[in-house]
């Protein structure tokens, strides 16, 4: 714990730290939020750390600080801190587990009788959302774009059929042709940016553009753990994860194209296999989160409820450095 050093930096200078640390801080925040007025920070929580000399007191008039009782029993305080963090993490885990249900509860408000819904790839949230509408005796049809090159749409189609939904599987490239028959596009997301943009599985930007062209609502389902306090104006945030070309090509068949021994040693064949697309906020009609439906322009507010600016950068620094 001592090695963890927290500092408040505005998110422009922010590293694209999209792993679990911001999530952790969100959890801690959620635990502490009851006793504070302004958005609390993980730092508030940690102010009671016994060796607090290592932690800079840069901001936040922590509500639950125990004042000047420095001589108080160290172990009891650290136990309380530990307890708080564990509780917060458990709460977060529970939140993540129940967010699908909470989102799915809203399904009937959005899916109407005899509608055609289009989705791409596979997302558990989308699956449960659609099934919830089905359980409420809504009858509707689903178009599933297969989501090349990982073809998770195939799995989704299988699941949907198993639950008795009328499903049509289409290729990704047929999306534009089919969109005019679609009433609503419902997709999942990998992350929701602070400006309301979405990092989503590859191919979704194309779907969003097609939906816009035909004025079809483009709805994104995202649990609140998918919210991300970063803005995409920093290009590094949008850096994609490039996966193995073997998802596109069979290496054995194409090994002669990757032949570096002949010619000038430069391969003529390049394969790019990005994992994500960035869908700008203006293409998104509605976000459905576990707290209800929101406009893209409102997302920054939602995120501010969960993240404190103080916690945005959690970096590992040498302890001596402070």
């Amino acid at each position, binding site marked *: 714990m001592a090695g963890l050093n927290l500092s408040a930096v505005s998110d422009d200078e922010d590293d694209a730290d999209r792993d679990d640390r911001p999530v952790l801080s969100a959890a801690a925040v959620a635990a502490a939020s009851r006793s504070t007025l302004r958005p609390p920070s993980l730092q508030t929580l940690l102010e009671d750390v016994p060796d607090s000399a290592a932690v800079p007191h840069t901001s936040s008039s922590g509500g639950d600080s125990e004042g000047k009782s420095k001589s108080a029993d160290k172990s009891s305080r650290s136990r309380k801190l530990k307890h708080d963090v564990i509780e917060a993490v458990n709460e977060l885990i529970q939140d993540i587990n129940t967010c699908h249900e909470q989102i799915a509860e809203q399904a009937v408000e959005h899916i109407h009788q005899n509608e055609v819904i289009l989705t791409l790839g596979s997302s558990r949230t989308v699956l449960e959302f659609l099934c919830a509408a089905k359980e409420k005796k809504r009858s509707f049809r689903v178009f599933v774009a297969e989501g090349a090159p990982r073809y998770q749409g195939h799995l989704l189609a299988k699941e949907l059929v198993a639950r008795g939904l009328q499903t049509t599987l289409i290729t990704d490239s047929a999306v534009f042709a089919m969109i005019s028959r679609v009433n609503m596009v419902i997709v999942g997301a990998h992350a929701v940016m602070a400006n309301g943009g979405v990092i989503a599985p590859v191919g979704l930007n194309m779907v969003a553009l097609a939906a816009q062209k035909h004025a079809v609502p483009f709805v994104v389902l995202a649990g609140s753990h998918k919210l991300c306090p970063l803005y995409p104006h920093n290009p590094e945030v949008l850096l994609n994860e*490039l996966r193995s*070309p073997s998802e596109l090509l069979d290496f054995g068949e194409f090994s002669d194209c990757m032949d570096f021994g002949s010619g000038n040693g430069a391969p003529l064949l*390049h394969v790019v296999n990005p994992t994500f697309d960035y869908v700008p906020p203006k293409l998104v009609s509605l976000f459905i989160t576990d707290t209800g439906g929101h406009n893209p322009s409102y997302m920054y507010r939602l995120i501010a409820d969960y993240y404190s600016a103080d916690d945005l950068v959690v970096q590992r620094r040498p302890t001596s450095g402070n």
Partner: protein
Amino acid sequence: MGAQKKGATARVSEDPEELARHPLQAILLADSFTTKFRPITLERPKVLLPLANIPMIDYTLAWLESAGVEEVFVFCCAHSKQVIDYLESSDWSSQPNFLVATIESHNSISAGDALRLIYERHVIHGDFVLISGDTVSNMSLTQALQEHKERRKKDANAIMTMVVKQSKPSPITQQSRLGTDELFMAINPDTKQLLCYEDKAEYSKGFISLDKTLIADNPSTVLHNDKQDCYIDICSEEVLSLFTDNFDYQHLRRHFVKGLLVDDIMGYKIFTHEIHSSYAARIDNFRSYDTISKDIIQRWTYPFVPDVLCGNSAIRVERRGTYRASEITLSRSAQIGPFIVIGQGTEIGNDTKISHSVIGEGCTIGSNVTIEGSYIWNNVTIEDGCELRHAIVCDGVTMKSGAVLEPGVVLSFKVVVGQQFVVPAYSMVSLLQQPTQQDSDEELEYADSSSGNVELPSKLNGDITSDLSETRHGPTSELGTGGVGYIWSIFEGGHDEEWRHSVAPIPTDKLAKIMLDKDEDEELLTQDGNVLSPSGELKSDSDANDSEDGDNEGSRDDYVSFEKEVEATFLRAVHENVKVDHVILEVNALRLSYNMASVDCAGAIFYSMMKLAVESPHSSSSELHRNAADVITTWQNLLKSFLHDIDEEIEVILKFEEICLESAKEFSPLFAQILHLLYDKDILEEDAILRWADEKEGADESDKVFVQRAEKFLQWLREAEEEED
């Protein structure tokens, strides 16, 4: 990590007892027991060489960890201290649920020795993964392991599963991608049992031989030339004890695999597991180093790519596959091409052009430098105006301004290249003197006091190979003014072969040559690639293979050697007065063993007779005629016994023509006379001669020379015939 845990728990639930007793183990050989990476490996072990700026062993360990292996025994021999130090200082020593233990040895000279030593330590319990530290893969072991275990349950002799991968069935791809020879494997398509493994094969001979019993025992066999050996093996404990029992096994493939395949007493079996979408390859030489580096940069090995392996945002991938570490100084006018890796703290000057290269950490690269397809390791200084094409430059090298590296150059640690000096193509340059040649094959990449030597090249020079150094130039002059290092001469394979294993692209003329060879072998290849059909046709098929081979190239050779044998037999008969009957028997035996027709026998005997006639002393053509007449009279019975029908007689005449044209030109004036003689002796029938003349009617002018020579005789024959009518 997540995937790994899932895999592990899945297996636990399937087979809880077995797994509770034995965590999955792996043996990682951190020594390749070859010398292909010399001179670099004299100073640093191969597994610590950087591959896209990350030591090779990290790729292997990361893969093992992700594949669910829990205990890895790293066997170090050459430079063992360096390997151990590296592992201790790296994260690998402190991973939970992933134990990396080292086993050190100083006198192992082969993989066989290594495995024998590990057997003595009694550390392996149950199945293990055998891999060398230079293998890069992202395959999932779960399925292969499961197959292996199921087979083991059914058949205790199934002791090994070998991972193979499909590649293009073309020798040119094999050569140009990995620099390895073509590989033939015979696999039973139903059971996936490996039946035959031939690496560089008797391929030069144009055929490989399969044991007949092998074909008889297996209802179907597929002979593959499109499989690539990944050098990842899943072995059972018995493998180790087998190595101990057969103390002469050294090489894993050459001795162990082939030994098991040939040995049918113990009945041990090897199976294969083919991977399709995942990647696996072994760095065997500089060419595969180049290819695999590029595959990694193109992300075929995902998730084992530099940006993921380095962890938190130390390296980022940008557009067009540029991997950039965080703190690099790059001039605005520098042109950075696609697919390059630049390590931390590197400075690149104005107007420098870099493409398809890997540049390590802390390098200083000046202005107007051209770097193309090269691998530059850490802390290298390249001054202004240098040019590097397809070279490998190790740590601490300095290139003074204007120096040029031609394709295929390897500069080992801390070499200094002088100003304006051009290092010729395919040179190996090192501070260490080239060791005198030993038996190159099983030699170690081993120098006892590795790092100390680097500082003292002159001392080394003095005591080890003083004779050698005197005949060559001093270290300074060899690399231009101010240069330090020795240019090694090439022994292995000689100059013709140096392009094979180098990082430089294969020169076009060599490519054309491989292509040509390939075309010649095309027919054979397609035959070999065929699926041999089940049982009945099988034998005939393989026989047909042999005889067709004969038709193509073999037949000429076979016929020539047959002819020689016949001639030898005949001469012996002449000198030792062997009876004609015996000679006939002997020639018949030869005919059977060489699989020749009786037509060929007649031709060969006639040839031997004529040769005898020519070789016996003669001064004029009339004397030669007499000699020939003598020989023919003496041995007419022998010749007659092989002339059963008219075709064979015609063959003799044709043979005679050939002799006159090629081997013994002295006969050509005597053609008609000897023909007459043969007719007189009843060796040749009138019909045969006339038929020969008729056949020649339609031939070219040049072919008809002898017909014209014999015209008189022919006319006489025709007239005689008419008279009889």
